[in-house]
Every structure is written in C-alpha cells, then in structure tokens.
C-alpha cells in the first residue's frame, strides 16, 4: 500500500492531457476518438486533444504503465473494429486518485483564501445597517 502510494506520487502533478485522458478512462474503457470527444464535451469545447498529441500521450501513459490496451471488446453492435481500446491500470487509478485529491486540496485552499474577504463583506454590510 505504502509502496503503491510512493509509486503513484512520483507521477504527480499530472500533465493536463494525461489527467483528462485518465479521467475519461476512469469511467470505463474507451478508444482514442471516444477519449477526444469525451474531453471536448466535458470541458465544453475548451480542451481539444489533437490526434498526434493524444496518441503521443497514450504511448507515454502505456510506457509508464498507467494505462494499458484492453483486449476486451464491447458488444458487437457498439464495437468499432478499427479502434483500439484502452483502460486504466491499478497504478493508473491510484495516480488519478492522488491527482484528484491534490486538485481538491488546491480548491479548498483557494476557498479558505477567499473566505475572509467574504466575511469582511458581511461585516461591512452589518456596519452600514447599524449606521
């Protein structure tokens, strides 16, 4: 467990493209085109993984053993024979969990930082009412 955590931590922080690809695969196996479309829709068109960059990242994710090619195929009616499917490995899942936790901590830190200014606003409003 500890070794896994140590292994996972060395990949953090994740590159943005890697994060998006792994986040898509967290929902299940997917092929390249599917990953691209999923990321596009999830980010409302803000992040587009271009083909060469996508497969370059997939290649490196496989070398890092964070994802692997899946030998299981979906149902024939959903399958596209031209495509190759990928899925997260156990290590990949740990790394993704670690990255998500890191991002959540960041968000918490931002919220804490912004909180006093919101409190100040409340105080000022109270003062105005009193006056």
């Amino acid at each position, binding site marked *: 467990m500890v070794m896994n955590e140590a292994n996972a931590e060395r990949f953090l922080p994740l590159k943005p493209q890697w994060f998006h690809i792994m986040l898509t695969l967290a929902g299940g196996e997917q092929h*390249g*085109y599917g990953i*691209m479309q999923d990321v596009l829709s999830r980010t409302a068109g803000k992040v587009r993984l*271009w*083909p*060469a*960059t*996508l*497969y*370059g990242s*997939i*290649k490196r994710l496989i070398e890092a053993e964070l994802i692997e090619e899946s030998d299981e195929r979906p149902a024939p009616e959903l399958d596209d024979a*031209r*495509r*190759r499917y990928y899925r997260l490995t156990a290590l990949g899942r740990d790394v993704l969990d670690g990255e998500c936790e890191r991002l959540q901590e960041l968000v918490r830190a931002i919220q804490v930082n912004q909180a006093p200014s919101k409190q100040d606003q409340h105080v000022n409003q109270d003062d105005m009412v009193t006056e």
Partner: protein
Amino acid sequence: MNFAWRIYRRLAEAFPHEFKLAYGTEVTQLGQDVFQDIARRHGITGLIRLIADIAIRVPIEYLAEMRGDMRYALRALIKSPGFALVAIISMGLGIGLTTNVYSSKWAFLFRYLPGAANAPNLVMPDKPVSYYYVEQFREQKSLFSGVAAFQSGIPFNVTFQGGTSSKPERVYGQLVSPDYFSVLGVQPQRGRVLSAALDRAGDSPAIVISDRFWRNRLNSSPDAVGQILRLNGQIATIVGITPKDFNGALSIYSTELYVPNTVSAALAPELGDDLLHRRNAKEFMALMCLEPGVTIDSAEAALDAITRRLDAEDSSSPTRTDKGKRVTLLPAGTRVPIPRQLRPVLFGFFFALMGLVMTLACTNLANMLIARGANRRKELAIRLAVGASRFRLIRQMMAEGILLSMLGGVAGFVLAYGLSILNSRIVPPTGVPLENDFSLDWRAAVFAFGLALICGIGFSLAPALQATKTDVIPALKEGSTLRLPGYRRFGLRNLLMVSQVAGSLMLLLITGFLVIGIRKVSSTETKFDPNTMYLLSIDPVRDGYSPEKAQTFFEKLPDRLQTAGPVRSFALAGQAPFVLKDEDDAIQLTVDDSGAPSRIEQPVIEETVGSGYFDTLSESMLAGREFEESDQRIQTASQAVASKNASLPVVSSVVTPVATPAVLPVVMNETAARRLFGNENAIGKHVRDDNQSYEVVGVVRDLKSGMGIIQSVMYLPLTSRDFARPPAGGITILVRSDAGSDALSVVRNEIASIDPNLTIFNAQSLSDYLNSSRSAIRLATQTYGGIGVFGLVLAAVGLAGVTAYAVAQRRKEIAIRTALGATRAQVLRLVLREGGALVGVGTVLGFLGAMALAKMLSALTNIFVQALSVGTNNARLLVGAPLLLAAVGLLACYIPARRSAQIDPLRALREE
C-alpha cells in the same frame, strides 16, 4: 482541404518506424474522423492547428527514440567498460589536441581583434614608417577613412598615486596617435578613448588603460577614470578603459596602457630627438582603415606610388632610387598580420594537422565499432527478422558511437583546458612580455562538442551500415561466427586499418623529425656553468633620471661592481644574452666596397653590448677584438639639454645636429661575416645601413638563441645614447660570480647604495632565464612527442581489436584446420598474415606520406626547415620509427592471435 489532408497524411508517414507501427493507423484514422468537423467549426485556423500538432509531434517522437537509444547505448557501454574507456580516451586525445590547436593557434591567427569594429577593413604596411609618412597617408581620404600610428611593447614605470608602495611597477603599453581608437573602431567600456580634438601636444597627458590593468592593478575600482598615475615620473590621468579582451593592434605584445604620442619625451623617452618630425625615423607602425569600396590591392598600388614620390623628394634617402615594390599591405584586423599569400598556406597546415589527428582518433573508433557490430550479428538478424527497420537499428548503433564521441568531447575539452594552462606559462625569450592568454572560451567549447558530434555521426555511420547489411537467414543459422571478407578484398575494415597504420606512422615520423630536429638545433651552449651568471635589468630614465644622470650612473656602476666580493666579471647590454630577435627587426646592411661589380646586401639583427661582454660570456673572439671602454664613449645621438634640477627629467624639444662619428666599430657573428664577406677576413671591412657606416673590429661565434634559428647578428657598442634612451627591456647587467655565491643580492645592494629608489627587474640566474625561455621548446617537444605516442598507441589498440575480432570470426575455420592436422604455428601464421599485410601496406604508405608532408612543411616556414632537415636526415629515426610501429602492430596482432592457437576444435565445431 485536399491539400491539407495530403500534408497530414505525409506527416503521419514521417513518424519513426516503431511509433508508426504502434499508432500510425490510429493517428491517420482519427485525423480523418475529425478533419471535416474541425474545418467546419474552426476553418483554416483549425486545419493549420491540426497540421501543426502532427508536425511538432514528429520530431518529438524522434527525439524520444534517440533518448531511448542513448539510454540503451549507455547501459551497453557500462557493460563493456574496457571498450568504452579506450574509445573515450582516443577520442578525448584527438579532440583535446585539436581544440588546443584551434584555440591557441587558429583563433590567434584568424580571429578578428575583439572590440575593434573596423577590424575587417584594417590594413598596415609590412614595414615601419616615419610619422611624416603617416601624416601623408592620412591625406589620402579617397583611400582611407583613417590612418593611425602606433609603437608597441613600450615600457612604462608606473607609480600609483596614494599607493601603498612607492616602488614603480613596470608596465607595457603602446604609444599611439590620438586617432588610433577611432581608426580601430573601439568604444570604451568606461570613460572615453583618445581623440585628436581632445589630446593635443602640450595638453595635460591623458591615457587609456586596458581592462586587465583596471582589474588587476586598480581592483576594478569604479573611480579609475579620472585617477592620476605617474608614468616614468610624469603625471598622467586615466580618461578611459578599453573593452574586455581588447589588447590593441598587433596584439602579440602585452598591452596595458595606451599613451598618446603627443606627450613629452620626459614621459615617453621613445619620442625624444623630436621623433615625430624626423622624416627618416621609421619607428611607427601605420594602421589604416580602408574606405568602403577600396580594395587592399588598389590601396597598395596607390600607397606604393605615394611612397615612391615621398622617397624621391628626400635627397638624403638611400632608397629613393630603389626599384621594386616599396609598400606591401597586410590585413591588420587579426592579432598577427599575415601576408595574404601565406593565409591559405597556414590555414591548410592547421587544417591538415587537425585533420590528421582527428582522422586517427575517428578511424580507431570506427574500427572498434565495426568489431563490436560484428559480434552482434545474430542479435541484429533476429531483430530484422521480427520487423525492426534497418534505419532504426542503424540509429541505435550510431547512438553508441555518438555517445562515445560526446564523452570523448568532454574528456577532450578538459585536456584542452589543461594544455591552455601549460601554454599560458610559456615565457618566450623576448624582452617584452607576450600576450599569451589562451584561455578557452565558449567558441572552443562549441568547437570541441561540434567536432565530437560530427565525428561521432560520421564515423559510426559506416560501421552501423556494415553491421546491419546482413543476410538474415545465414546470420540466424551461423550467428556471429559468420565469416566476413578477408584481406584480399578492399573491405571497409581493411581500408580503415591501413589508413590508421599509415596515419599513425606519418604522425610518429613527423613528430619524431620535429622533436629530434628541434632538440638538436636548439641547444644553447655556454662555456661556463649558467648558474654562475646572473642577469638583472634597470631603466633609470624611466625611473625619472635625466640622460646625464643615467650616464653618470652607468659610469659609476662598474667601479662599484668591480669591488663587490663574489663578482668575477660583468658587462652591460641592451638585451639579455641568447635572446631571439624578430626577423622583422633586421636592418639591411650593404658591404661598402665601391670597387665591387655588384653590392652585397644582407639583413642582420642588431644587438647592443658593452665592453667586456664576450669575455664575461667566456667567448673568445674568432678574429679581431671585442669592445673596449673607449668604444662606449662614442658620441652618437642628439645632445640632451642638462637639467639644473636633477629630479626633473629632461625635455628634449630641440633638435641638435647629430654628432655621429664617421664610422662605428662593430662585432659580427660568424654567420653574418660569412654571408657578407664569404671566406674573406672580415676584420677592417666596412658596411653601412641607411644612416651609418660601420667597421668590423671583431668576429665571434654564433651564440644560439635556442629556438633553432640561426640569425646574422651585428653587435653595436653600448653608448651614451642607449643610456639616455634605454630599450624596452632596460639595460641588462650580466654578472659572473663564483659558484655558490649570492652575487645577485650583492649587486642589488650595490645598486641600492647608489640609489635605493631604482627599480630592478628581471633579476634571475642565466640558468633560470634559459629554462623559462626554453619552456616553449620544451612544451613543443613534449606536445609533439605526445602526439607521436598517441598515434602509436591508437594504431596498436586498433590492430589488436581487429585481430581479436578476426580470430573470433574464424573460430570455425581454425577449428576445422586444427582438426585436419594444422599445427599451432601454422594457425598462428595464418592469422598473423592478415594483420601483417595490413601493417606492411600501411607502413609503406605512411613512410611516403611522412616524407611528402615533411617537404611541404619545410616549404612553409623557416622554423620547420632547420628542425626538419636535421630530423629527416636522422637514419635512426627513418628506420627506427617504421620498425617500431611494425613491431608494436605485430605484437598487437600476436596477443589475440595466440588465442586462435588455443581453440579446442571439438568445442568450436559443436557451437552453433
């Protein structure tokens, strides 16, 4: 859009083979899927973005594969440390030596003066001229945008105002015309440079200092500009600092100060006798900046015509009726002005030298890689069989060669750095310190690593091509025991081996010629123990003495030294003994024999020596006599106006008629006497130069400078003129003493008792002086010797490697022969025959190449002629070097060949 799609597909095919195999189809498919969508949503911008994405990704993937190749190569080399070490050392030696030659010689000769913006347009005549001529040249505005004059190697005794020590320091600089810096195009890093408008005669002296002077002597003080110094006892103000690395024109001499030649003669004794206005005083180097569009040839022709006219106008000029060219212009934008016709020769020489060294190192690397590649034949065959591309395998094999070469580059750079430190410690036997800061800069680093990369790529390609050019099926069947073509065919391996042997022998012979030749001609023979002679120099005039006071001092000094305990004999001279003078300083002497049908002219070097000089050196005269004290009292130069106040230096502003005697007595060395008078007795003969007639009163043997050059030397007597205007190295006192006595301290005390404020410098024994001045020779012979040994070692290593590989390849064949009854001796002979043939052919070619190269080098420069002519006549070297190389080569073949005789035939035949 179709066009854009075609580009996309082409780029997709350009990916590295492995990436294409794994993801090529997906990338193309995905591109096709999104193409229309991107075109619709984002238009042409989107398509450009799509193509840019794949175009950027292609080289990234190649780089990623190269990184992988390098990691693989590094792992492979770690497993073969011996192989790696030999390859790195041989490449390191080659790159180190080459980088050293580049940074110390090539850059020295060919790089433009740093800080001088006009360097590409600068020219100078090959001979000094008078200032009058400089001013005439300056009028030629259609030819030159500026003409400056300068004198280099000028000593100044500098005292710092408010310094902790009142003792002056001897600093060397240049006397320059005020427009010097504008002609060069130099901007100061602080303050201002000299200018004709601001620095005129009679103004308070302003000087410019070098960056080195500012850093070393003023501790980079921010208040340096405006600081006051005393130069030769006179006040001067620093007005500016030159840029870093700028060392002035003709910057072989160390230059720390730039003093305008408008200062008084009290500050710069060189300007005495109204030097600037004397038409025949050829004491200045002229520096000209060509106008845009003016070529050096047209400027030379025009200047020649002008010089001819000026010479003709002067009825007293002895050269006014001379035929032939009067002026030769040299490009002056580099540290050493080189005649144009010599440039390609020098360029070719250094290129050839560096090329030879690198070729040896690289052919050795290539040979080792070929042998290593042959051992991996089976592995390569398997990889080819399962679909690896040949190009991919070649890249992987080249990665090893490139890595070895780059590691060799690191080792080479370290070696070059060490050699540059050694180079900077050379003290050549000249009076003025030379600028010998040859530290490596970023250019040398770029050169070293660029060379390593090019050699790595170039010399690992052929072995990689050879190793991967394999028939898969036979390789899989027979594996690494596949027999390669033997020595009868012109295989790559054999060609490389022969060229390596030939190159090594050439290097060995040439360096042997130089080492033996230099050693032989450069020995300095003294007839006494050099530890019993001491040299020290003083320069009273630059310590603030008037010429009369200086004269009085030198008249008093002999009496003091005569009574000093351990001093057996002493003499004064204008330079240290056994010094090498620049051939460019030679004056033209003519034999004064009006009855002769044609006059004999010879260049001779002048040296000034006092009475008893040769006796002090234990040199008996070959004919005639040496100088006596009466010769020393001859009036020569203009009379100085005596100063009432002894502390005020003399201002020599009035030109009085020169009181020269009709004839000056001179002593000649035997070479000068022979060249001027042949076998005739030189005593009583007369010679003359432009200004003076001489009578030969004595002939002495050649006192060798130790640099391998025999010069014609004429010795002039030291006179009051020399005391009034000492040369750049001051007046040298030679003192012979009893062995083991500290005569130096005694002499120092005697001088101090006359005047404790006189600066004594260059005080050392003759032995120390000879040692340090021979340091250049020592370094040269050590370097050449090292290069020769390097070639020998490389050849041996290469031969051993190739033979070992050949034995490994022929295991089966040898096993069959042994099984059929061949003896060990027969097997050994079979293996050695191949190596022996390569050594034989290489030796013959190397010998012929060495003799041809020696002839070529002799034609280039005097320095090589004498050393090489001695060396190439040395029978022991001519026979010994090839034999040595052959012996080493055969030994290198024999050791691995012995293993062939120990092959167990049963085991070898069972191997598959």
